[in-house]
């Protein structure tokens, strides 16, 4: 019978990180695609909804005044899909070290960009989710919390990976202890 994974602090943090960050990333990506315009049918209306939503997101990316309008368009058309993919991969838990590192990198990037805008007193929308949301100190605090969670989760994932996993290799683990 398969031995269940004993829950310790590190594993609990990894689970919380995966559920929270994975869920938020998937939601953030999907919300950018289908909010605020949620007309889903007929098909040409859905295509228009997504196009308008991505155009609005591109405007928000551009308002940070870090990259050119063309680059903003490119980012706006790629980022939501990357967020969905990374969120799903984190939730599934496949190759966790790679995707946890990627999500940490992205979260730290978001935090840097948002903090810069806040310190420059830029009166802009955050662009974090699909619906307009003013960038405030709360946005910085929230992103800091998520970035910290991502960082701690990634460190714990690497630490856990150095030990034999009780789900995948219980026999191997007992063999090692026998010797």
């Amino acid at each position, binding site marked *: 019978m398969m031995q269940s994974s004993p829950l310790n602090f590190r594993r609990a943090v990894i689970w919380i990180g995966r559920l929270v960050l994975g869920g938020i990333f998937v939601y953030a990506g999907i919300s950018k695609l289908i909010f605020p315009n*949620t*007309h889903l049918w007929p098909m*040409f209306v859905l295509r228009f909804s997504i196009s308008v939503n991505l155009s609005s997101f591109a405007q928000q990316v551009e308002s940070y005044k870090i990259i050119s309008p063309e680059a903003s368009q490119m980012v706006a058309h790629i980022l939501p899909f990357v967020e969905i993919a990374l969120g799903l991969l984190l939730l599934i838990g496949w190759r966790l070290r790679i995707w946890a590192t990627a999500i940490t990198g992205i979260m730290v990037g978001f935090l840097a960009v948002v903090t810069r805008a806040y310190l420059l007193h830029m009166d802009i929308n955050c662009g974090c989710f699909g619906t307009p949301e003013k960038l405030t100190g709360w946005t910085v605090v929230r992103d800091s919390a998520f970035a910290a969670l991502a960082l701690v989760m990634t460190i714990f994932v690497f630490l856990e990976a150095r030990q034999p996993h009780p789900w995948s290799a219980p026999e191997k683990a007992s063999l090692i202890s026998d010797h």
Partner: protein
Amino acid sequence: MSRRALLALAVVLAFLGGRLLLSRGVHPAPTVRARTDRATQPSSSGEPNPSASDAHPTPALPTTPAATREASAASESATPATPVPQDANGIPDVDPHKAFGSKSAPISMEVFSDFQCPACKTLFMTTNRQLLESYVSTGKVYLIHRDFPLPMHAHSVVAARYGRAAAQIGKFEQVEQVLFQNQEKWEQTGDVDGTVAGALSAAEMAKVRALVKGGTLDAAIDKDRKLGQMYNVSQTPTTVFHCKGQTYPYGGAMSFDTLKQFLDQLLSQK
């Protein structure tokens, strides 16, 4: 399917389901006409239906020509506005000086806009110019400007007043252009008057100033704002498309290519 995949799927569905429940829905909103018909329909006893009018207490939208005339007369007492006609898609309270194209066009577009909003500027400078050339001048689209000054912008109400005043002397197009073109300047200085003066002659500017000082324009701006609230406008620009009895409100700026594709599909719809 593994436990992990099922868990991931459940979390995603929970997020989406929750958000969709909170959003305004997945279907196009009913038309203004349908809503107002309900609101103004008398009950079987001949009395106005109070519950129906309570459902949409904000703008009392006329639906019949007689009602339109009455509303027009009432609004004239509040503002020295021009007549209030209806277009082919049954949109009331249209100031002809703030609308472009043929009233009988198959598609009507109401653009809820704020002169101080950067995305509105983008929409005006890029998309709407091409729209005017390709669809409005050819009689396919009737384009209506609506004021929706956001509270977060310090000078947008003042700019809306100047826009309204300019519309009343038939100079809306020029003033709209100069306000959007110089948005960054007057946003900093607050000098809306000076910006508008750059686009009008001294005599025209005197008329505009008199209308702005008259204080009668706010009622009309408020009317547009209430109409926007009825469409759940929460951001600017929001464009409300009316075609063949359907209403599609869209928040955000859009490129002309995307808009063109959508308009062509709307026009080809049976």
